[in-house]
């Protein structure tokens, strides 16, 4: 009985003491970088390498250059488990930390991104949702604090069709071809449908949809239909987590040629092809950055972080697709801080100042080479109006052991995507009663 009382009393007392957590003291010359991660739960195989790459890149900058212009970068992780409510809790806990508050948030989940858009805009903290999140946020006039950097799902859909057209020998050859989309039946998976339909009308290919219910372990019926009845010329895979490897396995089972499957970038990591074994050889996926450890910045990470024993993950996992994506995310944030420091001074910056840095981020080919990302990513330029930056997309192929390039850098069809983004943003502005900014 007294033990129960003790437990209750302890719980109560500690709950009362909890607010003390959020007011930790930090040193003066530090830039606080929150990192929302999911190292646990069903998506941890995907979340862990992203989180490792993100933290390792900042640690490398600290070890190699002493931070950014002498400002040390302090990364603190908060586990979300891919759960929206937990993500919001992490955001509220971390947003005020450090001498100047949070630099920017990388929610790493579509649901959390959506929930944070309004809160972060009110708090003047940028959100970087690189390659996911709300596509409409590419319109910086309506979403001043949200940056879906590099490229969007709609851009990816146009680039994939461009790649397919290139393989077929030109857009005019698409007429009458059958293209099927196998997608995760959720908000994320349905995202490319409108633009794929629009392009079907323009180029004359026959488009069919195959929804797969979460989590996607059961796809036999879907693939029998694809492999035996529809027999499409191409399959676009828009999956997530365990659904991807299952789709590749089933495609192999019905002998659908894997090199005629193109995945979105969340369907193109080692975690997706390795479980499918030999059946995955030849499978292609789109991406907006390089795979493999053969890049200068990754060598620096190995040298300064892993050889010093401070690595977050295992050394041999440096260079995995998702690891590299985390590192790229960190690089973009670091470059935004650097850009903002040129204007506001070499000191820790507030979220509002970093927002300026993101909006004026200009990654030229020279700059990309300078920071060791040569060949890893195409040049990128953000503006007040365009929060995406017009990054390019490249197709990679799994050769059975590693990802190799299967195409050149492909430019997406901005003339088709941009009006759709502006239309979606205008609808959001109308619903929320937002007057779009004037971007001159």
């Amino acid at each position, binding site marked *: 009985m007294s033990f129960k009382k003790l437990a209750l009393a302890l719980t109560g007392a500690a*709950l009362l003491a909890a*607010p003390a957590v959020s007011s930790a003291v930090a040193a003066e010359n530090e830039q606080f970088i929150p990192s929302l991660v999911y190292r*646990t739960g069903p998506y941890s195989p995907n979340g*862990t390498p992203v989180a490792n790459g993100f933290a390792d890149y900042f640690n490398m900058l600290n070890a190699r250059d002493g931070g950014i212009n002498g400002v040390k970068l302090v990364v603190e992780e908060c586990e979300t488990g891919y759960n929206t409510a937990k993500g919001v809790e992490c955001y*509220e806990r971390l947003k005020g930390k450090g001498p100047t508050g949070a630099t920017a948030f990388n929610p790493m989940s579509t649901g959390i991104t*959506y929930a944070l858009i309004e809160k972060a805009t*009110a708090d003047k903290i940028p959100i970087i949702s690189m390659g996911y999140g*709300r596509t409409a946020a590419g319109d910086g006039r309506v979403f001043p604090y949200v940056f879906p950097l590099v490229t969007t799902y709609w851009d990816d859909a146009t680039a994939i069709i461009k790649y397919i057209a290139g393989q077929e020998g030109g857009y005019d050859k698409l007429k009458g071809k059958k293209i099927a989309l196998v997608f995760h039946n959720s908000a994320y998976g349905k995202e490319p449908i409108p633009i794929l339909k629009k392009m079907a009308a323009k180029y004359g290919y026959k488009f069919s949809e195959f929804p797969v219910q979460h989590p996607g372990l059961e796809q036999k019926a879907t693939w029998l239909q694809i492999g035996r009845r529809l027999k499409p010329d191409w399959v676009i895979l828009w999956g997530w987590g365990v659904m991807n490897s299952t789709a590749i396995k089933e495609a192999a089972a019905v002998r659908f040629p894997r090199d005629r499957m193109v995945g979105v970038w969340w369907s193109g990591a080692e975690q997706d092809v390795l479980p499918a074994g030999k059946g995955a050889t030849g499978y292609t996926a789109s991406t907006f950055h390089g795979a493999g450890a053969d890049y200068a910045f990754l060598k620096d990470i190995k040298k300064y972080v892993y050889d010093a024993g401070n690595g977050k993950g295992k050394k041999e996992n440096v260079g995995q697709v998702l690891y590299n994506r985390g590192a790229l995310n960190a690089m973009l944030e670091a470059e935004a801080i650097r850009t903002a420091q040129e204007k506001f001074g070499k000191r820790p910056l507030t979220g509002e100042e970093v927002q300026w840095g993101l909006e004026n981020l200009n990654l030229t080919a020279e700059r990309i080479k300078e920071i060791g990302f040569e060949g890893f990513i195409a040049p990128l330029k953000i503006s007040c109006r365009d929060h995406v930056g017009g990054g390019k997309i490249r197709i990679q192929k799994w050769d059975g052991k590693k990802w190799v390039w299967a195409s050149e850098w492909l430019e997406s069809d901005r003339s088709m995507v941009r009006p759709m983004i502006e239309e979606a943003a205008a609808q959001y502005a109308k619903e929320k009663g937002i007057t779009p900014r004037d971007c001159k």
Partner: protein
Amino acid sequence: MLYREAGQFKTSYAADQAIFPLAQDRIGMAIILAVAFIAIPAVANEYWLQTIMIPFLILSLAALGLNVLTGYAGQLSLGTGGFMAVGAFAAYKFATAFPEMNIIVVFLISGLISAAVGIVFGVPSLRIKGFYLAVATLAAQFFLLWLLVKYPWFYNYDPSGVISAPPIDIFGFAIDTAVSKYMLTLIIVSVLALATKNLVRSHIGRGWMAIRDMDIAAEIIGFRPLTTKLSAFAVSSFLVGVAGAMYAFLYLGSVEAAAFDITTSFNILFMVIVGGLGSVLGSFIGAAFILTLPIFLDNFPRMLGFEISVETVTHLQFMIFGALIIFFLIVEPHGLARLWTITKEKLRAWPFPY
């Protein structure tokens, strides 16, 4: 000694039927309300309001709704998440179609729509019972979420299927700060909790309990199973629907249907079981336990100054949380609310227990 009814005479029927017949209870309740309405908004920071108090109140309301169905009427349901989603999407449709409409009216209408859906899914309860009914309501959970993703009309053709709450104002007063959202949530939850408390003490509530305890006996003494069971489904889904609407509008701001998945249903069921079946107070205690304990366990090692990696903390949290649930269920299988009842009995005799 302090907690005795001695000297408090009831001289009217009204006094005899009061919710809190004891003066001590009335004082205690007044203090709780004063803390909730005055002290918390004055003292709590944004973190507390946004991540603990607002979701606590909203989930308490959802747990209260499920408690009406499972605790009072004895119908086990796993469809809570689905009904919350109905409430949220209905509120979104009304708020965007009629921007002039008062948000409280929007919440009430979305509750009514959720109640109607609840009645439809309550019909099988006339024939099936217990675990089989749980499976039938599980179908509601999956069907409703599937429906809300399938037809873009429900989310105004947004390309990613996410609903975002439009700006809220009540009589020209904008609800945009954490404090104002908290106050609105608190007022709605207090009113609905009071209404539910009265409902379960009334003829209707006694009917539910009669059906729960033995449906044939209840039928013999004159309660029609059809109306009694369906009214429980309606009231329960109404409360859950309002909670869902508030979850979308006052807590997260933007949600996709997936936020109301089966995990939500289970969590709310756990709140009801841990808090106490058939107890209004239990719904609040259960929600507080299930919601705040993981947050606290997450923060605790850092409060003590330990540097533990986030995944270890999360795994530890799962283990401790699970152990505590088992501990409390063994110590008090009737839920945490029962502990309070026992405490009250002990206080009555204190300091001279016999």
